[in-house]
């Protein structure tokens, strides 16, 4: 059955709609909220993504069609476009503007899944806290700010089961920059940390052009 939710192509943007979409894309195995974190004296908004079954998720297959990006997840599809495409894929579909609040929130979720995938060790649970980049009509500016918020401001806390801490540490050392990564090994009761929140570079990245 086709079920299309237009988050902000023809409707006004909706923060709650963005969380509802991520909830659906996780197969409802998530607890999601917006929060904020003190950064350089300002309270910067964040999206908080707590996943109960992160191992189920992998990055979507992406196809370009009719000026739109179609991203196929296990539990639904996201179509990013500037205007409503003439035809839409069958299934549970979320329509987003490429440069809207819902898209910024959605791409933060994708970054979460990317980090989970890159670690290469199946996580039992995860919690990603990602600053939301301020929007700009120039999409390239929005995307640059998102990249900086992920790299310098994201905090990923993962719970894994790994018999040897050394295996976990080795995987973590191979990770590219993704903010602060904290992994609690439920088997050994130890938490390992790599990366950091770099407030100065984050603020530099989010400031005026």
């Amino acid at each position: 059955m086709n079920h299309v939710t237009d988050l902000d192509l023809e409707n006004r943007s909706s923060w709650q709609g963005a969380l509802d979409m991520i909830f659906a894309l996780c197969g409802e195995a998530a607890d999601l909220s917006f929060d904020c974190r003190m950064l350089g004296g300002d309270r910067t908004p964040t999206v908080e993504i707590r996943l109960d079954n992160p191992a189920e998720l992998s990055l979507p297959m992406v196809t370009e069609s009719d000026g739109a990006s179609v991203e196929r997840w296990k539990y639904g599809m996201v179509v990013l476009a500037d205007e409503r495409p003439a035809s839409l894929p069958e299934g549970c579909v979320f329509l987003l503007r490429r440069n809207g609040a819902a898209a910024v929130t959605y791409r933060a979720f994708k970054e979460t899944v990317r980090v989970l995938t890159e670690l290469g060790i199946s996580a039992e649970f995860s919690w990603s806290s990602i600053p939301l980049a301020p929007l700009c009509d120039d999409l390239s500016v929005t995307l640059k700010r998102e990249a900086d918020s992920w790299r310098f401001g994201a905090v990923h806390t993962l719970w894994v089961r790994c018999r040897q801490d050394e295996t976990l540490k080795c995987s973590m050392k191979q990770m590219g920059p993704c903010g602060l990564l904290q992994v609690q090994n439920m088997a050994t009761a130890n938490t390992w940390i790599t990366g950091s929140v770099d407030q100065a570079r984050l603020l530099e990245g989010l400031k005026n052009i």
Partner: protein
Amino acid sequence: MEHWSVNEAAACIIEEEILPKANRLNIEVVRLKNGAVVLDMGIRCKGGFRAGKYFAEVGMGGLGRLSFTMIQLERCLVPGLRVFTENPGVCEMASYVAATKVPWKGDLQVISGPVRSIRGSDHFAQLVSYRDPTPQKAVAGVQTTEMPDEELAEGIAQACGISPNRLYIMAARTGCMVGAVQVCARNVEQAMPTVADRGFSMSQILEGNATTPLVSVVDDEAVAYGRVNDCLIYGQETNLTVRCADEAISAMLADIPFSKNQDVYGIPFQELFARCKNNWAYVPRDWDAPCKINFFNITTGNRFTTGRIGYETLEKAFLGDGGTL
């Protein structure tokens, strides 16, 4: 005011929100031969954040809300949670507190949850006048490594005064996500018995909210048990809105927090518990104390604070033998 049944509110959350989504909550529902329904939220099942939130909100009889938040310690930014309660005397003392003891497998199992309020027979329930005498359904919470069985259901039913076929039992071990969340959610609760012990009436507490870091979710039950208690005695901060004379607060202020135990302050709870033969019967009452309480006296507008956060111990509980790579 119309009677609020903590049991029926709790059963409503279970029936409308938990049972239909059991699979996605990573929990299992088992009906026992005597009709009691067990929700395995973290014994054989893995549970999760949402299941933990439900365990706490059901346990509070629908009078509390739990949400998650990051908490900044001195050096670490760690997961945490906050609880907002209405009518904390009922929500915590009559409902969420783990206090009723029931015989099980030759020992005593401590029960929490709204079912306690039917008879209100344990010490903490008796500190409030609220009773929920005739609910259609009742709910108990159990922190255990073993699946509740017919014997436990019968024991709870007999102790609390309800037929087992009208009973829900939520169960999780400590060393899982639900176990960690549901214990750390005992943050408003952590403040209540201590002030009650000092003669402060529960009816004077109008509202309560609290935060607790959730520093550790680990498999080892003893380590998990120690660390969730570290979260409470070294990390919980509660705000209580009260109506009383200022003197009623100031008279007990210095005697409340865990930090008054200067001879043991900073020692992880796992070690303290081991000194007490891992038996609560030997734990000094002053060790089961709140970390920090802020009182807001609605009568005078004055604020009183007692206790302090034990950052170093919390960060040790978060890291274990780990650290920065």
